């Protein structure tokens, strides 16, 4: 764990593109959503999907990345787009992780 989360890259079919983030003690999902939007000047396209009893929120920056919030309890899926360069992938991962730390801290403050 580093900063309250663990990042596990997908070693399979989406090798190099998908990373799963695990947050054992939870995070403030609305705070994370807002932080991500603010970090990218409110340009992320948002959508939601119903997976059984679960609602998954998707935030997309076209041709760069997609974030899926709520795929499992305490798990977030981050998918780099194929056209994102290695530099862009590193940068957007860094921004995402910074936003996630903020959302984890917000949750801890509340509890």
């Amino acid at each position, binding site marked *: 764990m580093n900063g309250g989360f663990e990042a596990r890259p997908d070693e399979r079919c989406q090798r190099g593109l998908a990373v799963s983030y695990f947050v054992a003690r939870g995070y403030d999902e609305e705070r994370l959503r807002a932080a991500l939007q603010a970090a990218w000047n409110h340009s992320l396209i948002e959508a939601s*999907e119903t997976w*059984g009893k679960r609602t998954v929120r998707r935030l997309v920056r076209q041709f760069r990345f997609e974030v899926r919030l709520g795929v499992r309890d305490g798990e977030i899926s981050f998918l780099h787009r194929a056209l994102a360069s290695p530099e862009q992938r590193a940068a957007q991962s860094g921004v995402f992780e910074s936003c996630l730390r903020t959302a984890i801290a917000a949750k801890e403050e509340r509890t």
Partner: protein
Amino acid sequence: MARTLGPYVSSPHGKRLMGKEPLVFHCNYYNYFLQKTLLLDDELAMHEVIADAAASSAFATLSNAARGLELGTPDARRKLAEYTFSELGFGTIDLSRVTPSGGVAHVPVSHYGRCLRAASGAEFARPQSYFDAGFAAAAASVIHGVPLESLEGRIEACQSMGAPEGRIAVGPRKRRDAYFVSCGQGGQWAGTPVGPNKDTHVDESAILAALGTLDFSGNEEGLVPRFGVMLTNHFANFYNRISFEFVHRMKSTGLMEAAEDLLVEAGFRCAFHTFGGIMSSAEWDAVIKPQCKTKEDWVHGMVATVNALGWGVWRVHELSAERLVVRAYDDYESSGWLGTYGKAERPVSYLMAGGVAGIMNLIHVGDISRKPTLDLGFYEKVFESDARFFPRQVKSMAMGDDYSEVVAER
């Protein structure tokens, strides 16, 4: 994202059509292993068959869709072709520089160019985007009203070999053999399949309804990242043509049964990665796993999910820890065979056979519920174990039976 597309049309027995062509979901791993199998022997010239099968299937889809949408201009038909390529998960293609006399199609993102590399774990020594070459030729034919027989696509650059983007040169066809004509839906059984097996906690209709709400269209890059794999919503008749022609060409060398075994092996790989990916995915955990109380329920859940893939209607006829019998109504392989060649002398449901045994191997040999890493070592441990399940095709719709039946036993 609003795309001009031929509408998706539901057809009986789990089929979904676009431009009158049946679509089936398959992932980058199956696409990789199937193509790897077909390209094993250069003398079979299967790369030409792959490109031609892509051209024929894409031509049928695009020309039917363009007619149905009454697209009167080359520009409108070009957009249809580009959107269709992206919608179905093949990537993104720019056909703006392809004229009636030819030109170069640019492929910034190619499923075959990029996503097979992820499956193989390495770059390739030869190009993999034969599908893109065929699609580009078909698109040029439909866009400009040029006979398909006069065109072919040739790979100039492929991302599978490290090129930054794919390039397909579309020009006059040099080969003299004709493209095959896609059979559309092909053979269809007129009856009504039996309902889902009731001896389970799994509610298939609820699973299909839940999966029906998910977005399986290609994203802005024309890719479909789902279930931990890269999906394509592919042309069933593409798979049929390349598989059956492979068997035909191998038969002429006296190796027909070996060819059939290799296609079943590709089905094992499909099961391992696609079914394994599905059963390890967050989507499975949210939608299907809550209904699964026993290992048998996992089998029923996976079969219910197969029925969302466009492969026909699968029904669990018999199930124990030692044996699975699945009956498939209008399995796409049999439908395609019947529509193209008429009644078969041998069963042709290779993918189905591999898939049925694969489900049992994943659940009863590999215990997929423990979410193992789906790597080569685990594949060998499960599918090459002494306890593995083998499939037998005991009935075949292509041979005149009402359904195809596969028995998987140890």
